[in-house]
């Protein structure tokens, strides 16, 4: 993640320098499976697609702090509390890696935060579901972070260098998230009847939203709609939503068996012929409803985010005032 541009035009596509030769250079890098770096000229569509995707990803990370942060004060032990705080701090870090990556494309993170706050940019619809019990913290780690890893691992090879590098860091850290979630459910599943029921209830509520995280169908007939084909051609996306969802299902069903939990899908069964699990129909009406703002927690999440940002204004102002006061005494060039 290099920082912003070092002085020259952010994107030659917006200048007269952007010729067919430059397009050819870009196409050649993509065809070669080379990475695009911040100061390379790139088509405007590539740039705007990446800004939208990275921003939405960053927003998801920081909004994702809320459903879990909800349980920090009520974690069942000091061990669980320390783990949960580290995890929520990681989510903040992931958001910052991603805002840094987005800024290399010539946007300002304050502008992106404004768009989150006024609803012009989205975040993953999964975070609009409430965390009703402690078991939900486990289910988020196991299912939501598990699905996120499935989505994010291919992004480590994304054609845009700063995004790919951010995702490598994120993926390293996510595996702790998934394992701690599984461990929470593993502990509950071997506990009292009430604890087992709590774990089952969480799995029941999070399974379908987790499958929706991969996005609407985009293979077969649906492949001609949406952005998947273009994003694959650009090397931003490596697998279709449906392929990733299938991989996630195939990975997760045996884990659910191990936990002794059932997944809430009567049609879920192994298909010998395909060599994959079949699943029942996903309620895409629910997905679109939640994405468009009508989920259980949409307004609460954005409202909380906005309040946190505004309540922190004095800290930012104080830091700036302190820096201005001490600017004269600042020692630059002291390399250790």
């Amino acid at each position: 993640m290099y920082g912003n541009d070092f002085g020259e035009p952010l994107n030659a596509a917006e200048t007269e320098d952007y010729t067919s030769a430059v397009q050819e250079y870009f196409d050649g890098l993509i065809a070669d499976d080379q990475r695009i770096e911040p100061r390379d000229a790139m088509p405007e569509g590539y740039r705007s697609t990446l800004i939208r995707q990275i921003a939405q990803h960053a927003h998801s990370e920081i909004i994702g702090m809320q459903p879990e942060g909800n349980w920090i004060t009520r974690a069942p032990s000091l061990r669980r509390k320390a783990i949960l705080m580290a995890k929520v701090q990681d989510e903040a870090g992931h958001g910052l890696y991603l805002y840094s990556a987005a800024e290399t494309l010539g946007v300002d993170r304050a502008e992106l935060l404004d768009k989150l706050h006024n609803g012009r940019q989205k975040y993953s619809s999964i975070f609009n579901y409430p965390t009703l019990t402690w078991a939900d913290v486990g289910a988020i780690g196991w299912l939501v972070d598990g699905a996120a890893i499935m989505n994010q691992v291919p992004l480590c090879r994304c054609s845009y260098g700063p995004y790919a590098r951010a995702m490598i860091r994120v993926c390293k850290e996510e595996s702790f998230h998934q394992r701690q979630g599984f461990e929470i459910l593993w502990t509950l599943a071997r506990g009292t009847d009430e604890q087992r029921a709590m774990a089952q209830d969480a799995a029941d509520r999070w399974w379908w939203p987790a499958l929706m995280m991969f996005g609407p169908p985009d293979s077969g007939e649906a492949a001609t709609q949406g952005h998947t084909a273009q994003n694959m051609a650009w090397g931003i996306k490596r697998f279709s939503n449906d392929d990733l969802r299938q991989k996630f299902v195939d990975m997760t069903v045996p884990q659910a068996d191990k936990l002794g939990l059932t997944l809430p899908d009567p049609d879920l069964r192994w298909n010998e012929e395909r060599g994959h699990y079949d699943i029942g129909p996903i309620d895409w009406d629910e997905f679109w409803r939640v994405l468009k703002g009508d989920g259980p927690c949409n307004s609460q999440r954005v409202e909380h985010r906005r309040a946190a940002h505004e309540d922190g204004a004095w800290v930012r102002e104080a830091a700036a005032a302190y820096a201005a006061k001490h600017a004269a005494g600042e020692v630059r060039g002291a390399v250790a």
Partner: protein
Amino acid sequence: MSDDTTAAHAPGANAQGWPLFEVFVRAKRGLSHVHAGSVHAPDATMALRNARDLYTRRQEGVSLWVVRSDDITASSPTERDSFFDPAADKVYRHPTFYDVPEDVEYL
């Protein structure tokens, strides 16, 4: 902030006017500092602290550098060919360029 006000501050500075710093991490003694990412901060001291919190949460480093992004001078990708070309025709800088008898040891 609306789209048309973004140019109101220095390149790389955010809405509070905080400049952008590039972060370099030395993973352990004996290795060079490597670029890890960037942070915004009001000054270099805060940039170091922000960088520590963001890039070394898992003991990824024993030393950190932060450098103002606008203090970096970079080569231009569009001049890449002419800039690096002078090295292209000097294959004699590589040891494999030389024909020597096969039975000479330690060469």
